[in-house]
């Protein structure tokens, strides 16, 4: 029964909550193809008007960063405080800046 090749592939589901917002990851579904994945995503994740648009994509297609590399990837931004406006001292009386 559990021949893994017979399981429908996994799809990640993204929902746009309303116009003006970007699609956001909400979970996943199993489906034989993209059309069925959309139908399953609709039934599983939007039973209460949670969205106006759906994306599905095969989970196997996602390339993710390794959490073990998080320090190397993201920490260098920490010592670049000059990227933030609060780094700069502007005298009192100067406005609109």
């Amino acid at each position: 029964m559990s021949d893994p090749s017979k399981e429908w592939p996994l799809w990640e589901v993204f929902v746009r909550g309303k116009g003006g917002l970007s699609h956001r990851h909400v979970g996943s579904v199993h489906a034989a193809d993209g059309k069925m994945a959309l139908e399953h995503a609709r039934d599983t994740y939007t039973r209460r008007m949670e969205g106006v648009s759906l994306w599905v994509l095969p989970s196997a297609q996602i390339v993710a960063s390794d959490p073990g590399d998080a320090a190397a990837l993201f920490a260098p931004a920490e010592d670049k405080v000059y990227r933030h406006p609060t780094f700069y001292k502007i005298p009192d009386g100067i406005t609109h800046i």
Partner: protein
Amino acid sequence: MYTTDLSGKKSKPEAAATEDPAKLAAFEARVAADEFIEPKDWMPEAYRRTLIRQISQHAHSEIVGMLPEGNWITRAPNLRRKAILLAKVQDEAGHGLYLYCAAETLGVSRDEMTEALLSGKAKYSTIFNYPTLTWADIGAIGWLVDGAAIMNQVPLQRTSYGPYARAMVRICKEESFHQRQGYEIMMHLAAGTPEQKRMAQDALNRWWWPSLMMFGPPDDKSPNTEQSMRWRIKRDTNDELRQKFVDITVPQAEAIGLTVPDPDLKWNDARGAYDFGEVDWEEFYAVVRGEGAVAKERMQARVKAWEDGAWVREAARVHAEKRANARVAAE
């Protein structure tokens, strides 16, 4: 609800002993600081195994939980009730699916979990092995069973494993409609003819104690509670949640003129809580062992659904493959 550890055995500590102590310490510190653990983060094997067991057991409970209520869809007393019950049962399927997909992020496949359920290896909540004899049972399930579920699930929105916590947030949002529709059914029956009121009282009599059992064995018989609380997989003990449930539910019963079937139930001013009678734990363990009134029927229904659907799963898979191959050939 369905998050009670039904294994009844203390999990083996040997796994912790073989983990890298530095990684383990860093992990414990993150969890203690209420950080979330995400799928690709390092985690101890025992944490992974406990979560797989707990989340899949919870998912199975949602799926099997559709059966007692599905039993009444065709016999709902009117169209309004029927539409509500259909929506509720569909929600339960949705809850099962959110949870299966959360468990899959831990490296277990959907088919493995299905097989564990159908072969009887995996447990699900004992509550679903009781039969739904009358329409009032649908009211009692929504009110008491879903009420107990909410009590158990609300704290799990802050559980340490990110995908599980996010699934619980969605589930809790949907669950309160379930409880209110159940209470409404009971309210109407209790205010109806003497016969209807008797039916409501009879349902409360049969579902009260099994609902209290849903919180799991008493704390001193729940060997894995301490570790699960440290890992933020569990956030309150079984007895704490059971007490909380009794305290909020008794006034709800009184408000609609129903009597909680416990002669020892008494408000304790000093504790600011209800004292209540002892749960029949022999019955609980018997149901966990699979001796519930309709345990066999439940599994037969799941096995039949799985086997009857095999040709559909197969046909859809082959059709998708054929179309994908045709696309490749055309390019």
